[in-house]
């Protein structure tokens, strides 16, 4: 077991408009991409972020060695309970996942 960050180049999270969040895992190599795509089922992301797995989108982009997840924002951007206006910190939760 090791944190996901140790296998990949970078994890980035951003808003995709005020209602969606998108997380890009840049694996950096085909080997890492192949490893992470099998070792990281979408259900783990849904559980970690407590989001509806049915609403979690997953994209595997082999040409970039990127795995991308998009989901409804748990709190709409900038609403009174939102704690991360730009959605930038979500990447840290993913990067620290034990793989």
């Amino acid at each position, binding site marked *: 077991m090791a944190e996901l960050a140790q296998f990949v180049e970078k994890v980035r999270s951003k808003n*995709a*408009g*005020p209602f*969606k969040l*998108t997380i890009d895992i840049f694996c950096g190599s085909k080997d890492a991409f192949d490893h992470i795509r099998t070792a990281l089922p979408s259900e783990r992301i849904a559980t970690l972020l407590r989001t509806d797995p049915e609403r979690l989108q997953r*994209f595997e982009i082999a040409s970039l060695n990127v795995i991308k997840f998009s989901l409804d924002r748990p709190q709409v951007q*900038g609403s009174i*309970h939102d*704690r991360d*206006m730009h959605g930038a910190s979500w990447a840290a939760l993913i990067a620290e996942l034990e793989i």
Partner: protein
Amino acid sequence: MMTRVLIPSGALGLGYDQLAMDRAIAAKPDIIAIDGGSTDSGPSYLGRGVSKYSRASTRLEWKGLMQARAEAGVPLVIGTAGTCGSDSAVDWLLDITTDIAKELGQTLKIAVLRSSQTPQHIADELAAGHLSPLSPAPEISEEAIKQFTNIVALAGAEQIQAAINTGADIIIAGRTTDTAIIAALPLMQGCHSGAAWHGAKIGECGALCATNPQSGVVLIDFDETGFTITPTADGANASPHTVSAHMLYENADPFILYEPGGHLDVTDAVYESIDGKSVRATGASWVPSERYTVKLEGARIAGYQVMTFALLRDRRYVDHAQQWADDITQKARTKAVDRLGLSEDEFTIELRLIGKNATFGDLEPENSNHRPTEIGVMGFVTADSLQKAQEIGKILNPYLLHHPLTQEEEQPTFAFQFSPAEVPVGPVYEFCLNHVMELADPMAAFRLETIEVHHG
């Protein structure tokens, strides 16, 4: 046919590399296009209809672009003027523009495209069945819409083309899609439609699709089959990787991008490197839609807020911060209900523990190995009036200052950072629309006017 579009940076206010800009102007672009904002800075800017960037910074950069435009002799277009693209933000930039024109002695024809929508009109459109929710979308009603402080519609290429057709030197557009200001001219001049939108998406953030991203400036050459993008700063190089990766950026679907009148599909796009500096892309397609729709954005007041802040440095309190904060929240809530005669759902009190779990709250996984040196306690009170929020903030205050973990111990005191301890944030806003509106004609929701200024 080739159309060369110069993009100085991802947004007016972010700055650009002057040498790279000079080079790009020397390369004789057909148009200069820059974005003026987005929703990413939060709902307050749209809610109030104001810019997030300082007037001085905006003026300085805009002046540079107005000088570059005069030198190049081509139109300069800004989309989403003043961060949110409301009419008030457009007027703000128009005022800056006429002020600069006077200073520079420029005679100009300015086209102004307005995107604001009245709440009554949008309520009527909802009643007429012309609004459709995107997913996810907040619940709306005709009554609720009338409380929205600002609503804008996102213009597409058609509205920018109408502005270009006025022969204006400068186009100040309200809310537009980020891509429309870039795609408009190539589409008008017969370039490949898939390439026009694809290149526009790649170039929307300037040199963010290349190395040395903060240099800003890129040139995009559009033609009948594709586009070629070139960052013009030293040390800024585009590669198939940096360019194709930009399709991921702030985009929920990396292959599809919805625009007024259709969508871009880059599933079959091919990227090739040219000289290690530029990238050529082909293979994207534009899929027209049956209905012409524009996206709407709206904001309303969510409440009035007061912020307060204290630091816990005592190790015992650091160790038991969550218990301490939960206890305070509950006690302050009860007291606010009792003393102000409020109901439980009329206000919120939230304490965020910086150093422990402020970013994620309950979602933060337990980390028992980590003991922070100190914990920042950031408190928010939100109510339906500022006066009420301030009253509740003052009820919360003595707890944050002196609340003990146990009744037996001596009264503790915690470190406050400023006086007054309760800082009024004022009205806080929330985004309240994620809908599209069907239009019979692309210009139906937008107003275009031209203004001539004569100086020099």
